[in-house]
């Protein structure tokens, strides 16, 4: 016979079970032990985040790209290239390259990875149907949204700050003796590296928001790429007067001002 007996928690004001199975003595548990609280929702979102393999992979990719591109940019830095204004990726070609801007070369790529991570956290629930379980457990929706943002933001912030610092330190030997070399203790270096982390943390939260609005992983990722990469490029086609008033609001520009030193 399948076992159907369930442990009953006695609730005040609710009649006890009719089963012959022994019931726990009434009022052994003071009131209802189960209750949804903000902290518990946060705890749940935290557990949800780490129990998915995709979270680990995407987060790993973000940090890996950050370290890899930053290090490579520092090692391949050629001071002569600045004279010719050669092509090269963001941060490596400009004449105003610094050890920090080179170390942060990977931010653009990492921003896509953490943005996708944010999208997967929210839109992933809609795509898979998990959202029904989530909202059945927490019928007030906003705590779920805040919790997702509160989980992903700090995680992305901390890990990408560590990643950016690692890129800076790994790249330092490559710039040894160069005019632009800096050390961690130099003015503004730590602020810039942490700024990159703040930017990436915010991109992850932005991904969560896009995911909730669009409710489809593919759609939200497309929107994310469009907003982070394509839109700023398109805006440069606008007349100068318009461009000058719009440009400061792009997130990628924010990244330059939060993360880039002296820009």
């Amino acid at each position: 016979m399948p076992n159907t007996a369930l442990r009953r928690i006695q609730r005040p004001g609710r009649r006890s079970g009719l089963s012959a199975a022994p019931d726990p003595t009434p009022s052994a548990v003071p009131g209802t032990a189960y209750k949804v609280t903000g902290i518990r929702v946060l705890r749940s979102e935290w557990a949800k985040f780490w129990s998915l393999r995709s979270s680990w992979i995407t987060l790993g990719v973000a940090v890996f790209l950050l370290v890899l591109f930053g290090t490579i940019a520092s090692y391949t830095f050629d001071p002569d290239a600045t004279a010719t204004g050669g092509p090269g990726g963001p941060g490596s070609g400009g004449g105003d390259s610094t050890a920090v801007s080179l170390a942060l070369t990977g931010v653009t790529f990492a921003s896509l990875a953490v943005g996708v991570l944010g999208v997967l956290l929210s839109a992933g629930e809609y795509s898979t149907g998990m959202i029904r379980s989530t909202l059945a457990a927490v019928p007030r929706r906003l705590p779920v949204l805040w919790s997702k943002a509160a989980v992903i933001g700090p995680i992305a912030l901390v890990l990408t700050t560590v990643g950016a610092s690692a890129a800076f330190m790994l790249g330092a030997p490559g710039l040894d003796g160069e005019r632009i070399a800096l050390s961690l203790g130099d003015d503004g270096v730590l602020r810039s590296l942490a700024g990159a982390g703040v930017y990436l943390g915010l991109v992850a939260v932005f991904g969560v928001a896009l995911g909730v609005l669009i409710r489809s992983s593919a759609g939200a990722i497309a929107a994310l790429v469009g907003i982070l990469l394509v839109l700023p490029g398109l805006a440069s086609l606008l007349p100068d007067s318009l461009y000058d008033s719009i440009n400061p609001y792009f997130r990628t520009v924010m990244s330059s001002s939060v993360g880039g030193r002296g820009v």
Partner: protein
Amino acid sequence: MIEARELTKRYGDKTVVDHLSFTVKPGEVTGFLGPNGAGKSTTMRMIVGLDSPTEGSVTVNGRSYAGHTAPLHEIGTLLEAKSVHPGRSAFNHLMALAHTHGIPRNRVAEVIELAGLSSVAGKRAGAFSLGMGQRLGIAAALLGDPAIVMLDEPVNGLDPEGVLWVRNLLRGLADEGRAVMLSSHLMSETALIAEHLVIIGRGRLLADTTVDEFTREAGGGGVKVATAEAARLRSLLAGPDVTITSSAAEELLVSGRDAREIGAIAARHGVALYELTPQSVSLEAAFMELTRDVVEYQSAPAGTGRKAA
């Protein structure tokens, strides 16, 4: 206890649920029946606040679902089996839900055991078969030790052993004093589990009855009578609530009088009967008879809604 009052849901000009009122009481199993597209799932989604009603209201234990501090403790639901992230293991899925209510880890282990998922608890839910997914959904529904258990098509995809398990489980839950509501489009299956029936079609309430009563009414399929004096018997049996049809020269199909009555009348007037057979109707047939109108409606041109029951 679930109480729906004049519950209505419209999508554009399509009315999916139409002024539906019913009550699901503790201590009994309520079968929620209707053909596909009758509005069963929409109604259940409104009960747990996943959809908001256009008009009317529904309360769970006296309050709207979102008004509860521990909703999983009030009502456990299985809506669609795959309300699970396929990348998360069964245990982690249940644990994530448990965290929101402060439900302890041993309770999670308990429902996994109860649902027979112990051997696959560490496996990704995406790799589960339909039946295992259904068991995981039922485990999630029972997680918060709820006073009400509401399951949408719980036996879908289960093997006969699983169907029996669900049947006994729901019976046991109702016997413990919980309210149990399950939806189905299969009358015969539901009649085995449920006591109370709420039957809807095209979003409207068609019947709010008990299985016993429904069975009794379904038995009123008429009585087949064969006699050489069909015409004479016909006039003898005639009455205000009696309808008599005839498919063959010596055969009558009488409804409105039971076999005993017909036999007595025939004997009193010396009419020899060759056959006297009550025509029993299966529950499934009775259900289809009841919902036939609303199914037919769907292909009929738009018109004013006729009260179907």
